[in-house]
């Protein structure tokens, strides 16, 4: 059970997102209506601090617990894939009010309806890989 630590990091993640209400459908709606700073503050401050953390990784100031350098993989390039995939994702994000992490956290909250969304998301991931050769990337 050397992976048990990831369970605890996940619990932390679930509590943070739950307590910050970013897994509430209402918060996502409000964000896309530009009627609250909350979501922008959450993502913005996470990224602002994240930029510093990434620099500390690159400079070797923060290493893994085994003392190895931390390398962050570059994202796959492909303008169309990123844009079209992003737009499709955004449509679903606003409608369900949940992206993949929050879906699972909401499951823990006992939101039965989210099971349908998760099944849909699994189906969506499957469909993408079934037809990806025909899609522009």
């Amino acid at each position, binding site marked *: 059970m050397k992976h048990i630590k990831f369970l605890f990091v996940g619990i932390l993640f*679930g509590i943070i997102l739950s307590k910050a209400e970013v897994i*509430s459908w209402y918060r996502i709606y409000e964000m896309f209506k530009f009627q609250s700073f909350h979501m922008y*503050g959450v993502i913005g*401050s996470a990224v602002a601090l994240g930029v510093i953390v990434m620099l500390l990784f690159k400079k070797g100031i923060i290493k893994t617990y085994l003392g190895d350098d931390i390398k962050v993989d570059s994202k796959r390039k492909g303008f169309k*894939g990123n844009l079209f995939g992003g*737009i499709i994702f955004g449509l*679903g994000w606003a*409608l369900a009010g949940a992206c993949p992490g929050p879906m699972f956290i909401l499951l823990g909250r006992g939101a039965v309806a989210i099971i349908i969304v998760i099944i849909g998301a699994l189906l969506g991931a*499957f469909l993408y890989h079934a037809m990806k050769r025909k899609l522009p990337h």
Partner: protein
Amino acid sequence: MDFIVQPWPWYVAGPLITLVMLLLYYFGKNFGVSSNLETICAIGGAGRFVDFFKFDWRKKTWNLLFTLGAVIGGFIAFQWLTPSEAIALNSQTVQDLAELNFQNGGAQYLPDEIFSTEAIFSVKGFLILLIAGVLVGFGTRYAGGCTSGHAIVGLSNLEMPSLISVIGFFIGGLVMTWLLFPLIF
């Protein structure tokens, strides 16, 4: 303890999300939730239909455990750390929701109009949730990441593909919220 049970402000939640990312890299892994969707498909036998899913999913056990942790975290927060279910929404937001026939916006964590038992057992309600899920799952794999992998990790790492994806997330979200919601609800 009072602070714990109040909703956490953005300047607490944002840095804590960065901490989660840091911990995952410190433990030699990465931060990306949506790849678990592929892992679960692979476990479910999707490899019989699409070759991509023939990868060794056991190598992703750590991320499944992270996801299971997220479920447990949601349970803990719901059971013991959230005395009030209400979301303090902007009054304009509540009014806009009322125009879409969403009653009592923010009175609960999730709107009954989408998530109640009554809603999920109607054909329309079921399809809304299923289609929303399909869009998220398809879109995130097409774009190569979701809010965690692109918006948090990718933007932090100043990745152009992530910036394009996040712009896409917003185009899609704005189109849904401003143009399609009045047609759907």
